[in-house]
């Protein structure tokens, strides 16, 4: 237990300390500079841009993870489909989840290569006549990256919502049928309200985890072209380990920590409320 505190809480204290020092790690006796490091990063346009990018990437990812995960869960739970087929598809639809971020990154780099299969089909079908450089054009990079992350992340929702769907009491649907409710009515007034607590839990966690994205970005765009996919995590990493500005990096790391903890607070509150019911 004490080891745990040593390895988790002590580093947190250290990173806060670094963030108010000048030349942390590098200088033998760094001096206290107050909030100067925070002023430095907030006046850096790339940092401000990386907040915007992270926000766009995260919000789009969470929304589409939820939509796709919910849609797939509903389809896989539908009794219009043969149950053996459903069992097989349940296994296959989880596939994206079984791959490491780095592997997802390079597989999609191959697929979205300018000479790759996506451009190949789009040209063969006469949809485009110029090869699109998905990951290296400023117009498409952030969207391509977000798309890949959407592909990689929906199964968590799908699996959890499938479990949730199976937990909804059948009597609710039977009662609704007696009252003359149709399919969309049941979805809107029974299924979604019943799934709502699960959706909130997972969306909050997903938001926190997606905000911290690193390997996927590092391995596809590296933050480029011209910072259009720079995220808070890649910005911080570069500050620390390619420019060796550990103090400014610590300040940026504290900002990420702060965002995460605000959301964690909401998550814990939500969990408490669910337990009290």
């Amino acid at each position, binding site marked *: 237990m004490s080891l*745990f505190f040593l*390895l*988790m809480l002590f*580093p*947190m204290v250290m*990173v806060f300390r670094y963030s108010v020092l000048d030349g*942390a*790690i590098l200088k033998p006796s760094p001096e206290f500079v107050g909030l100067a490091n925070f002023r430095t990063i907030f006046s850096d346009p790339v940092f401000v841009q990386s907040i915007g990018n992270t926000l766009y990437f995260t919000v789009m990812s969470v929304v589409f993870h939820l939509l796709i995960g919910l*849609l797939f869960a509903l*389809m896989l739970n*539908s009794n219009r489909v043969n149950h053996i*087929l459903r069992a097989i*598809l349940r296994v*296959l*639809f*989880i*596939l*994206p989840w*079984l*791959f*490491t*971020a*780095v*592997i997802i990154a*390079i*597989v*999609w780099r*191959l*697929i979205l290569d300018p000479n790759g299969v996506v451009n*190949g*089909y789009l*040209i*063969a079908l006469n949809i485009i006549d110029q090869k699109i450089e998905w990951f290296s054009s400023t117009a498409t990079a952030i969207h391509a990256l977000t798309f890949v992350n959407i592909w990689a992340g929906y199964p968590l929702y799908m*699996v*959890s919502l499938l*479990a949730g769907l199976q937990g909804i009491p059948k009597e609710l649907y039977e009662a609704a049928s007696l009252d003359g409710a149709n*399919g969309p009515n049941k979805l809107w007034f029974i299924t979604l309200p019943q799934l709502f607590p699960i959706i909130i*839990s*997972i969306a909050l966690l997903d938001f926190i985890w997606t*905000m*911290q994205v*690193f*390997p996927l970005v*590092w*391995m596809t765009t590296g933050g480029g072209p011209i910072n259009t996919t720079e995220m*808070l*995590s890649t910005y*911080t*990493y570069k500050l620390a*380990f390619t420019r060796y500005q*550990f103090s400014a*990096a610590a300040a940026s790391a504290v900002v*990420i920590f702060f965002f*995460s903890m605000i959301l*964690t607070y909401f*998550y*814990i509150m939500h*969990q408490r409320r*669910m*337990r009290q019911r």
Partner: protein
Amino acid sequence: MDQPARKKLDLATIGVHLGLAVGLVFAGFPVLWMLFSSLKSNTEIFSLPPKILPDVFSLSAYTSIFSDPVKVRFFINSYFVAGTVTLLTLLLATLAAYSFSRYRFRFKSTFNVLIISTQTVPPITLLIPYFGMVVAFKIFDTYFALVLTYLVFTLPYAILLMTGFLNTLPKELDEAVLIDGGTSWTALWRVLVPLSVPGIVATAVYTFLLAWNEFLFALTLTKSMELRTVPIGIQLLMGQHAFEWNEMMAMSVLGSLPLLLLYLLAQRYFLAGMTAGSVTN
């Protein structure tokens, strides 16, 4: 009256099947493309119009990986680090979980909140002080640095999972062992652990996945080729052999193998381990 209703029903059925077909392509195509590209020649991967199946199935990308000791080493490292972290996590988490579930202590709910918070602390925030500490303790570029830092991430949740599991086993079991002259130690290892195999497997899967997939710490806390794990190895090879796509895809297939096997062999535990963290209560 009956006719339009049935027609509408059929439309919905067709719609669901169409949706599932689109979903299958969306989920499965990238995976198929990875697998088939690893069996193609480099020119064939980029043939126009694209061909899904290789003309000749060739294992040359795989044989060239297995004959390169540097690449084989990436796999050995990943298995070694993930395996060690998993064993240590199971051992420490079982001991900690036992004391949490069997002995009353204060601040229990505070502790739960702390554990949940550790799930959401950004790794990049911890990376900077860890880097400083690892350099200061002279364990930079060692397996030890990786194992130790991974334990910090795996242990809290593993303890929570195992505590939850041990709580489902009645205390009368331990008491029976004590009455028969055993100690709490024998009660734990002879009775409780064998009964908790499902919980242990789920915890092991969760831990193994985390360690196998980890990228940021492996990238920063090691430096020499002999210590690099598979994700970092792939990243380095991308820089050097960016045009040998079949070999990169073969690396990816081999790097995904343990997770695919775990999933196929222990689906139920796998899902329990994967959703760990999101379905707390």
